[in-house]
């Protein structure tokens, strides 16, 4: 009788001990997620891709008012096809800068400066999407400083849910020099320096000059881009462009944009040194967000 109670109590205690070990010891194994966002970010920087696209949407645009031809009329012209090769992160960065727009008034710009790179942007988004799968959102943003009048962005993938999202960021250089220390003394100098670099990203001076001198439809595209940029900044570039002096044209646009950026920065920051911390004109920021089942889509 006593032995039976003893054995029953012992069995009860042993099963309780097993329960404690199983429930208590199992918890730490699933404590942290390794963070798939990091893996995707590394893959974006290291994977290369070749994208084929057409600049036909840009060619159709300047002629749209006069010729009245339908959209995509130049899609079949082989001279307008382009091939670009690079890392996925680099392609995203180029797509972000290429599709940037300049706001006329306050607030963010509504549309890209020209439609030339619409095809490139779509091709890059498709290439990235094909290599990252579902449950990943990638945003590449180029903005000289927060809430600047010039913004370029590319988004790939569906919108993430509200919670349980992992994020990782990458920065890719745009190829312009960083802000020199001499320009951080006054808001005017800083605005000028930021505007000059912004314009250099929007319309690279040397490349634009070679293209303008080459003539043909590419030259018309660059001229159109300058016209749009001049209209957005209230600058006059017709005189320097008549002699393909892109350095002078860029300087005029930068001057007009610089005054606006200087007032913008002054209203936002107390000190130029504080403002220069926020300036990110020489890099594109790529944010990767992942969620959902980590076994899928990787």
């Amino acid at each position: 009788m006593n032995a039976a109670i003893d054995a029953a109590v012992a069995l009860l205690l042993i099963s309780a001990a097993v329960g404690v070990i199983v429930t208590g010891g199992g918890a730490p194994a699933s404590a942290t997620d390794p963070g798939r966002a990091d893996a995707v970010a590394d893959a974006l920087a290291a994977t290369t891709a070749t994208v084929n696209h057409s600049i036909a949407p840009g060619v159709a645009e300047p002629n749209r008012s006069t010729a009245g031809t339908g959209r995509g009329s130049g899609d079949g012209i082989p001279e307008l096809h382009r091939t670009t090769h690079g890392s996925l992160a680099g392609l995203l960065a180029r797509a972000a800068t290429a599709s940037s727009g300049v706001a006329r008034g306050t607030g963010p710009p509504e549309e890209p400066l020209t439609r030339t790179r619409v095809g490139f942007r779509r091709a890059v988004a498709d290439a990235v999407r094909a290599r990252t799968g579902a449950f990943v959102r990638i945003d590449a943003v180029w903005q000289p400083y927060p809430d600047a009048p010039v913004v370029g962005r590319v988004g790939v993938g569906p919108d993430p849910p509200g919670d349980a999202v992992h994020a990782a960021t990458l920065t890719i250089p745009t190829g312009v020099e960083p802000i020199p220390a001499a320009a951080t003394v006054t808001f005017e100098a800083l605005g000028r320096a930021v505007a000059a670099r912004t314009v250099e990203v929007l319309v690279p001076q040397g490349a634009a000059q070679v293209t303008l001198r080459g003539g043909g439809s590419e030259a018309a595209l660059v001229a159109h881009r300058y016209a749009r940029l001049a209209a957005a900044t209230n600058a006059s570039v017709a005189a320097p462009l008549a002699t393909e002096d892109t350095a002078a044209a860029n300087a005029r646009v930068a001057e007009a944009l610089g005054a606006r950026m200087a007032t913008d920065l002054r209203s936002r920051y107390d000190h130029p040194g504080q403002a220069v911390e926020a300036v990110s004109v020489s890099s594109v920021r790529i944010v990767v967000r992942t969620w959902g089942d980590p076994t899928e889509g990787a």
Partner: protein
Amino acid sequence: MRLADDDRARVPFALVGVLLLVGGATFAASLSARGPTPVNASADAAAERVDAETTAALRAAVRDAARAAARNPVTAAPDDGSGAALAGPDTFRRYLRLRIFLAAREAVAPVEHRRGDAVARVSLGESVDAVPEALDRVSVSAVDGGTELRATVPGLSLRVQRGRHVVDTRRLNRTAPLAVPVPAPIPSPSRTAESTPCSGMGGVLRRSVCSSGPGRLRWTG
């Protein structure tokens, strides 16, 4: 008979059960109290990310440098000054290497990643300030019959710091292939005609840069 009154020399099963329960609870508590990440992997993660970002930054830099070199080619070196280091049979190629080095150094300088208390940075030849030294840091070769350029940048140094301590230093070598036919091989063996512009460049580039319009190297907004 009560358990306490039992004077036989045997251990009750229930006592063994109590010992097991106490031991198990202690073991489970020690397992879960060890924390979710016993190893701080932040330094490694930061280094890995910088490694990947360096590759992307270098590719972009090499591409831009090659196009810029083709746009403003130097084919005849000056006799004095720092440009004299470009003199020799391969002036354009040396010039291209110099441009790639400068672009690469600038491109990798802002590459940085912070993860927890660890910071990883990468640098390329920060102490280099003479042209011959810079030329040694980059090598360029034409592959696939001169239709593609391959630039190799050895000796990038990656440094991971936690606080003030250097946790890890690595040397990275990177090769960036690039579909720009800049250093196309020079077809004729006689390269003495240095006086004519663009004589130091090969077929495709000569056609594209030295003629009226630079075919493939055009840029369109």
